[in-house]
C-alpha cells in the first residue's frame, strides 16, 4: 500500500513536476471549455491555424531578441482577429482564407529560422512543447489567463450559446453577434497562447478537440459537456505526466494520447451512442 502511495507521490517531489502539473491541468480544463464551442461550431481548423500562425510571431521575436511567448501570443491573436474579419467581410471562402493566413505566418517563421546560424533549440520547444521547463512565472501567467478565459465564458455564456446556435435570431434580438464572434475567436487565441508552452504547436489542437469531443458523446447539454470535458482534460494532464515520468517519454505526447484514449473509450462505450452499444441493439 505504502509502495503504491510512494509510486504515486514520487513525481511530485520535484518542483519542476509540480509546476508542470499545475500548468498542464489548467490548460486541460480551459481547452475543454473553449474547445466545446470549437467542436460545436466546426472551428477545429482555426484551432490548428492559430498555434501554427503563432510560430511566425515566435520567430520574429527570436530574431529581434524579444520575448518569444509574447511574440507567439501577438501572432495568434492577430490571426484570430484577421480570421474574424475575413469571416464577416470576406469574398473568399472562410477556410481558404484561414489556410492562406496561417501558412503564410508559419512559413515566415521557417524563413526566419533558416537564417539563424546560432542556437535555435528554444524555438523547437514551441514546436513540441516544453511543459517540464515552465517557470513559476509561466504558471502564474497561465493561471491568470486561464481564469480570465473561464470568467469570460461564464459571464457571456448566454450570448455565446445564442450566437453559436442561431446567429440570425441572436442578431435580430439585439445581441452584438459580430462582437461575440470576435470575442470567441480571441478566447480561442488566448487558450492557444497558454496551451502552446505545455503542448507545442502541433499538439494544441488535440487538447481543444479530444476532451470536449469525448464529453459530447457522454452528455446531452452544453454545461455538462463543458464540465465533463474539463475533467477529461485535467485527468489527461495528470495521467500523461505520470506516463511521461515513468516511461520517460515526451509529456505533451503522453497527455495528448491519454486524451485521445478517453475519446476512443467514449466513442466505443458511450451509453446509447457508442459504437459497441449500437452494435448490440442493431443486429448486423
Amino acid at each position, binding site marked *: 500500500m505504502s509502495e503504491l502511495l510512494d509510486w504515486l507521490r514520487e513525481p511530485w517531489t520535484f518542483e519542476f513536476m509540480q509546476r508542470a502539473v499545475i500548468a498542464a491541468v489548467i490548460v486541460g480544463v480551459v481547452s475543454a471549455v473553449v474547445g466545446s464551442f470549437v467542436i460545436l461550431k466546426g472551428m477545429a481548423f482555426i484551432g490548428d491555424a492559430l498555434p501554427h500562425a503563432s510560430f511566425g510571431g515566435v520567430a520574429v521575436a527570436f530574431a529581434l531578441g524579444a520575448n518569444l511567448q509574447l511574440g507567439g501570443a501577438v501572432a495568434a491573436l492577430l490571426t484570430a482577429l484577421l480570421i474574424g474579419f475575413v469571416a464577416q467581410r470576406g469574398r473568399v471562402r472562410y477556410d481558404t482564407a484561414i489556410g492562406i493566413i496561417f501558412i503564410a505566418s508559419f512559413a515566415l517563421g521557417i524563413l526566419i529560422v533558416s537564417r539563424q546560424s546560432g542556437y535555435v533549440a528554444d524555438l523547437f520547444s514551441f514546436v513540441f512543447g516544453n511543459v517540464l521547463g515552465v517557470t513559476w512565472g509561466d504558471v502564474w501567467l497561465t493561471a491568470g489567463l486561464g481564469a480570465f478565459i473561464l470568467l469570460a465564458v461564464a459571464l457571456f*455564456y*448566454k450570448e455565446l*450559446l445564442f450566437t453559436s*446556435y*442561431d446567429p440570425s*435570431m441572436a442578431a*435580430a*434580438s*439585439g445581441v452584438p453577434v459580430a462582437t461575440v464572434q470576435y470575442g470567441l475567436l480571441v478566447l480561442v487565441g488566448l487558450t492557444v497562447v497558454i496551451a502552446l508552452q505545455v503542448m507545442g504547436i502541433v499538439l494544441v489542437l488535440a487538447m481543444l478537440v479530444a476532451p470536449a469531443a469525448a464529453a459530447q458523446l457522454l452528455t446531452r447539454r452544453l454545461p455538462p459537456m463543458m464540465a465533463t470535458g474539463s475533467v477529461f482534460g485535467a485527468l489527461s494532464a495528470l495521467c500523461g505526466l505520470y506516463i511521461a515520468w515513468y516511461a520517460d517519454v515526451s509529456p505533451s505526447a503522453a497527455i495528448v494520447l491519454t486524451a485521445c484514449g478517453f475519446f476512443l473509450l467514449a466513442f466505443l462505450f458511450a451509453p446509447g451512442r457508442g459504437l459497441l452499444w449500437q452494435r448490440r441493439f442493431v443486429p448486423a
Partner: protein
Amino acid sequence: MPVGMSAAEATRAAPAVEVRNLSAGYDGHTALDDVTFTVEQGCLAGLVGPNGSGKSTLLRVILGLHKPWRGEVRIVGREGSGARGRIGYMPQSELVDWSFPVTALDVVLMGRYGRLGLVRRPGARDRQEAMAALERVRLADLSQRLIGELSGGEQRRMLIARALAQDADLILLDEPLAGLDATAQHDLLALLDDLRREDKTLFVATHDLSCVAANFDHAVLLNRRVVAFGRPAEVFTEELLSAAFQRHLLVLPGGERTLVGP
C-alpha cells in the same frame, strides 16, 4: 398621429408590417425592387413567389439582419431598432443546427434573451414564461428533449414557442410547412389560426399556394417587385400568378378550397 389619439391607440391602429419603396440586394444584384405593401395586425398573411423572388431577403430586411438600399420598414408603427424584439422568427428548417446540444426549453428560453440584455441570466420568471409558451404549443412534456430528438412538427412548434416566449407581435415564418406530413401540416396551420385569433400577426413565406388560398387572410405576391397584395381571392388570379411565376398556373376555385397548380 391624429389629434386626440394616445400613443397606445396609435400602436394598436398601425399595421403590423408597413413596407414602403424598399429596395435591397447583394453586391449590386437587386433582390427587391421598390417593394411596398402592408400587413394588418392579427392576420395570417402569406408571402408567395417563385424561387429567387426575394422572399428570404425580404424577411431578413424586416428582421433587421440585412440593410436595405432604400425605403423603410415599420413594425407596428416603429422603425429600426425600436422594432427590435417585437419580431419572432422561424428560420427554414435546413438552416437550423438540429444536432446542437440544447433542449426544447433551452431554445424557447432564448426568446427571453433579447430583453435580458448583456450578461444577465434568465431567472425564474423567464423560465415560467418559456414553460407557458411550450404549454401553449402542447410541448410542455417534451421540454427536456434534445431538439434533435423532436419530430419535424414538434421542432416547428418549438420555434413558434420561442416567438411566444419573446412576446413578439409579429412572427415571421420561412417555409414552415415544407417537409411536414399532412397531419403535422394540419396541426401547424391550426396553431397559426389560433394565434391569429389571439391578435398575433403571422407572415409566412411559403411555396404552398393552395394552402394560402384556402387558409390565409392576406397574400403578398412577390417577384422582386410586388406583383399584387390583398385578399388571396384577389391576388390568386391566373393573370397575376402567371405574371409572378412567368408561367401559366391554373386556379381552380371550388367553394371552400381553391386549388392552384401548373
